[in-house]
């Protein structure tokens, strides 16, 4: 592995302009991904503190575009609408958000059946994230993968371990309200075998606290599967991302509120500050975007 990321603005020393074929310096590196998450309730972006106390942060289509322009590698729209009337707006929200978005776009929260997934893909999503529905009906993972490909299926796992070890982390469903008795590590492995393309792991212990990702849990899940793991829950400052990409072995990290609001730990352009800090720490990043 090369020790330094190849910076786009630097000429590649192994490259000879008199050859048509690219030289094979082997210097390319897969970047770790920063994913901006939009929690959406009835068509509006909100963000909860530990799944409660929501506050409004704007229009999903405009926010998604703004995040992509700022350098987000991927956008996740998570529908947290509780009422069936509100849920009817999801497909239209997805369509509006996808229209002018040219980075990968995932939708979660409203997908319970293969038909739900098909409507979401038709509206312009690249991936769906399934959580409670996958626990209730694990065959759904394979059904969506068979029709749309494994790359289009993210299994989201909400896990809580309290003071216990990572191996003890338990899977919760229904927005974190219902314990399932399933162990997070075993469920991640099962989801991979059933056809999931990625795991989105949310630490319920850390979500909304700003105290940092649960690196031990993330590393345990990443070590249990061979598909990419997206870490979520607890992002509060740039160092937390450095930790989750190194000690936590995450392939991607997801956060919501720190990209929506100016916080004491980030200034006017949180994405740029975050990516520069990560590059300085030796984490490969897509930057400049």
């Amino acid at each position, binding site marked *: 592995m090369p020790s330094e990321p190849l910076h786009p603005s630097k000429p590649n020393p192994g490259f000879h302009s008199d050859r048509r074929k690219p030289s094979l310096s082997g210097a390319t590196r897969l970047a770790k991904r920063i994913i901006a998450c939009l929690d959406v309730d009835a068509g509006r972006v909100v963000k909860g503190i530990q799944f409660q106390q929501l506050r409004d942060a704007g229009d999903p289509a405009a926010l998604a575009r703004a995040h992509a322009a700022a350098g987000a590698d991927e956008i996740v729209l998570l529908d947290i609408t509780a009422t069936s009337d509100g849920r009817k707006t999801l497909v239209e929200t997805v369509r509006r958000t996808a229209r002018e978005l040219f980075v990968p776009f995932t939708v979660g929260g409203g997908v319970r059946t293969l038909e739900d997934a098909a409507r979401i893909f*038709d509206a312009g999503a*690249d991936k769906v994230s399934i959580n409670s529905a996958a626990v209730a009906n694990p065959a759904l993972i394979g059904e969506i993968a068979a029709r749309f490909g494994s790359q289009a299926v993210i299994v989201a796992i909400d896990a809580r371990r309290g003071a216990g070890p990572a191996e003890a982390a338990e899977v919760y469903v229904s927005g974190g309200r219902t314990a399932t008795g399933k162990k997070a590590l075993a469920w991640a492995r099962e989801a991979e075998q059933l056809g999931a393309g990625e795991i989105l792991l949310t630490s319920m212990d850390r979500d909304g606290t700003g105290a940092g990702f649960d690196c031990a849990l993330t590393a345990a899940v990443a070590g249990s599967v061979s598909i990419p793991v997206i870490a979520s829950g607890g992002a509060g400052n740039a160092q937390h991302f450095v930790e989750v990409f190194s000690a936590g072995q995450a392939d991607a990290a997801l956060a919501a509120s720190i990209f929506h609001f100016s916080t004491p730990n980030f200034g006017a352009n949180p994405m740029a500050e975050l990516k520069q800090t990560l590059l300085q720490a030796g984490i490969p990043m897509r930057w400049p975007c």
Partner: protein
Amino acid sequence: MIAIVDYGAGNISSVRKALEHLGAAAQVTSDPAVIAAAQKLIVPGVGHFNRCQVLNQSMRSPVLEAIKSGTPFLGICVGMQWLFAGSTEAPETPGAALFAGECSRFPASVKSPHVGWNQIEIGSGSRLLKGVSNGAFVYYTHSYRAPVVAETAACTNYGGAFSAAVERDNVFGVQFHPEKSAEAGLKVLENFCAL
């Protein structure tokens, strides 16, 4: 008019949206007559190589005839892999064999699928990648990849070098998703539209 060939592969609406954004007229079709009459062809794709069975059934000859007559062709992801002889992902499904070699799975030494933004090393003189910086990041999601061949216009290293882009005369292919690769990807599509 650019014909986006519909054979049940997943990313058709994303490709169409990107072309609309660039102001290019595009039509999604599986009609051999429309394919034959198109000024340019895009075969998108994502997912399993066995999807190419559908492509091979009724659309193979009009697509290959159009290529032979000089129609600019762009294959994306599985659509690029189809330009090779085939893939070990679906050995019973032949590719177009316009480029030598077979697509194969990533080695066990790296995580598969290869998901995310990786860099491309670009050869000189590529028309498709003109204006894209050497070392630019593009978005990938795939478990199989095409070998580096004489026509490789760009490569990426992930468990060894593979073809990120191929280019010969009017035939182009990209393993990455230009429709999901932000400015770098839109530049690739813009270059194709301008051919």
